[in-house]
């Protein structure tokens, strides 16, 4: 099944970015153009995804007409559809919010083009079916995100870009070494072909080495346990719209890589690798959230929460049953929406009070009940309480963990949920219900539609919690498609 439509989610942002550089004088036109391009991209993704669901097959494109193991194959399955769709949706939301957040005269000329280059890199990493192409996609999104981070942060904060850059450059180095090892071991870099050949080597220790190196690479991108300390240093320096997009998408690219690696590429019998992920999941869940209590700024607290929830996704990945992977995928969808909306709400608070330090906010409940309500919903959703969207995947993971007999994991999952709730309640008590501290600034008027934009995100995640059936079915089908290696290989390799 060859369809050139697959390439459009990648090429549209690229074309848009050069158009945005060209018409740098028409400030309002640029904004309309970027939103229109994102909607067009959304349309192509919806068309592709419905095609995938209807035919229950992958969409494959052999770039340049070179057949699969030799050329680069772009593959679009349901997982890619979900991830690319959410990426575009969050991009629309954060851009619209950012238009209200930054005055049009103060917006840097290269902000939007770099944002679109980053989207192109993210989409390519979700769509590609080739390990080296995945490296290229990572580099595109990394270089664009470096540029955006140092462009958007304040002048005296720009130096905190360096930890992010340095760690990711080391990650790129290890990725290249891993690609060399893979090529030497398997003689191919195509995912489908790698799957075929690695099945012949299941007892080979070199395959294990390759897997561990890939876990290191994706773990660095996804902020796994020993490799997460770059995240809470670098994300809070961003202005909140961009920070929301970074927090929601960039770590998930690493997690997506793990799902693709374990589900589609490597043989499912490599239990040691799954155990390694499980062992790393426990400290990621607990250490991340414990560090959140030492922080005062809302964005710092959210960043540490983010790390802890990456650990939850890892747990579903490490248990490696169909149900646990479904729960992981659902958790990922829920988490992307919720963490982005919490960042956006934090941004509104910064606009109102001039700071997001919870000591300085004080009695926001009185001045803005709507904002407090939104925060309450999302905070409870993040900790996985029943009527909200976090509940369903958490309960799925707990059930799967109990049936596998891994009680330590279930205990740490529950503990991290409880601690998330505590840290959210901490913010609510100190920031929203506490009496106003004396050194607080007067509330500043802000652009009202921004609350609406954040509200859309909250409504979507609320809907996800109240009626989870369609998304649950979607993630179940996506998991089945990812785990069905035979079908993937027969459809990609002609």
């Amino acid at each position, binding site marked *: 099944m060859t369809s050139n439509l697959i390439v459009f989610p990648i090429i549209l942002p690229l074309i848009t970015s050069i158009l945005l550089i060209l018409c740098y004088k028409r400030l309002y036109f640029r904004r309309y153009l970027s939103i229109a391009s994102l909607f067009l991209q959304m349309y192509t993704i919806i068309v592709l995804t419905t095609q995938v669901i209807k035919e229950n097959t992958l969409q494959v494109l052999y770039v340049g007409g070179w057949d699969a193991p030799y050329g680069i194959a772009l593959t679009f399955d349901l997982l890619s559809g979900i991830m690319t769709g959410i990426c575009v949706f969050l991009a629309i939301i954060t851009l619209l919010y950012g238009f209200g957040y930054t005055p049009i005269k103060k917006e840097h000329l290269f902000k939007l083009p770099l944002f679109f280059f980053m989207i192109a890199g993210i989409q390519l990493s979700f769509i590609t079916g080739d390990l*080296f192409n995945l490296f*290229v996609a990572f*580099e595109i999104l990394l*270089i664009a995100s*470096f*540029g955006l981070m*140092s462009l958007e942060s304040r*002048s*005296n904060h*720009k*130096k905190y*870009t*360096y930890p992010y*850059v*340095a760690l990711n*450059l*080391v990650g*790129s*180095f290890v990725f*290249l*070494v891993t*690609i*060399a*090892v893979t*090529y*030497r071991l398997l003689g191919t*870099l195509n995912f489908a072909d790698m799957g075929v050949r690695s099945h012949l080597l299941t007892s080979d220790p070199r395959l294990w080495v390759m897997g561990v190196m890939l876990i290191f690479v994706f773990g660095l991108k996804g902020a796994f346990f020993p490799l997460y300390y770059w995240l809470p240093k670098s994300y809070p320096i961003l202005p909140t719209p961009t920070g929301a997009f970074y927090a929601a998408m960039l770590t998930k690219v690493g997690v997506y890589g793990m799902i693709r690696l374990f589900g589609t590429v490597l043989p499912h019998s490599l239990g040691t690798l799954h155990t390694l992920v499980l062992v790393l999941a426990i400290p990621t869940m607990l250490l991340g959230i414990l560090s959140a209590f030492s922080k005062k700024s809302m964005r710092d607290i959210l960043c540490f929460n983010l790390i802890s929830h990456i650990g939850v996704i890892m747990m579903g990945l490490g248990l490696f049953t169909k149900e646990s992977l479904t729960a992981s995928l659902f958790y990922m969808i829920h988490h992307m929406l919720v963490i982005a909306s919490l960042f956006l709400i934090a941004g509104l608070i910064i606009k109102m009070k001039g700071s997001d330090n919870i000591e300085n906010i004080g009695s926001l409940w009185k001045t803005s009940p709507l904002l407090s309500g939104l925060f309450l919903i999302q905070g409870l959703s993040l900790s996985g309480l029943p009527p909200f969207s976090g509940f369903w995947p958490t309960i799925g993971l707990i059930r799967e963990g109990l049936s596998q007999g891994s009680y330590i994991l279930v205990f740490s999952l529950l503990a991290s949920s409880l601690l998330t709730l505590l840290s959210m309640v901490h913010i609510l008590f100190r920031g929203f219900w506490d009496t106003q501290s004396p050194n607080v600034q007067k509330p500043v008027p802000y652009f009202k539609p921004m609350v609406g934009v954040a509200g859309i995100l909250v409504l979507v995640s609320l809907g996800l919690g109240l009626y989870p059936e369609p998304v649950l079915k979607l993630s179940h089908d996506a998991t089945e498609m990812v785990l069905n290696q035979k079908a993937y290989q027969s459809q990609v390799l002609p």
Partner: protein
Amino acid sequence: MSITTIYLIGVLTSCAIYLILHRSLVKILFGFGLLGHTANLILLASSGNPNGKVAPIIDGVSNSFVDPIPQALILTAIVIGFGVTAYLTALFYHIFQTEKSSHAEDIFPI
């Protein structure tokens, strides 16, 4: 040949890590450049022993070529490394301008 490559990879990696852990920003920049070259060398080594093989250009005479894929990968990696180096240079220049120092311990005080 192969063992020489491995020695070279070891030496280059250790030099790169030494430079990256250095205080001065300029040396860190060189360290990352060197790290990129090491990665390229490792990719080159993945194409196997080149003894008795020629470059992958069809000339009708020889029929034993080295594997061209790692070379294509290296070309891409060089281009990406070039972009990263340009970005790092600009970042360090900015840090130097704002902090008035190129020493890591002045820029990131403990």
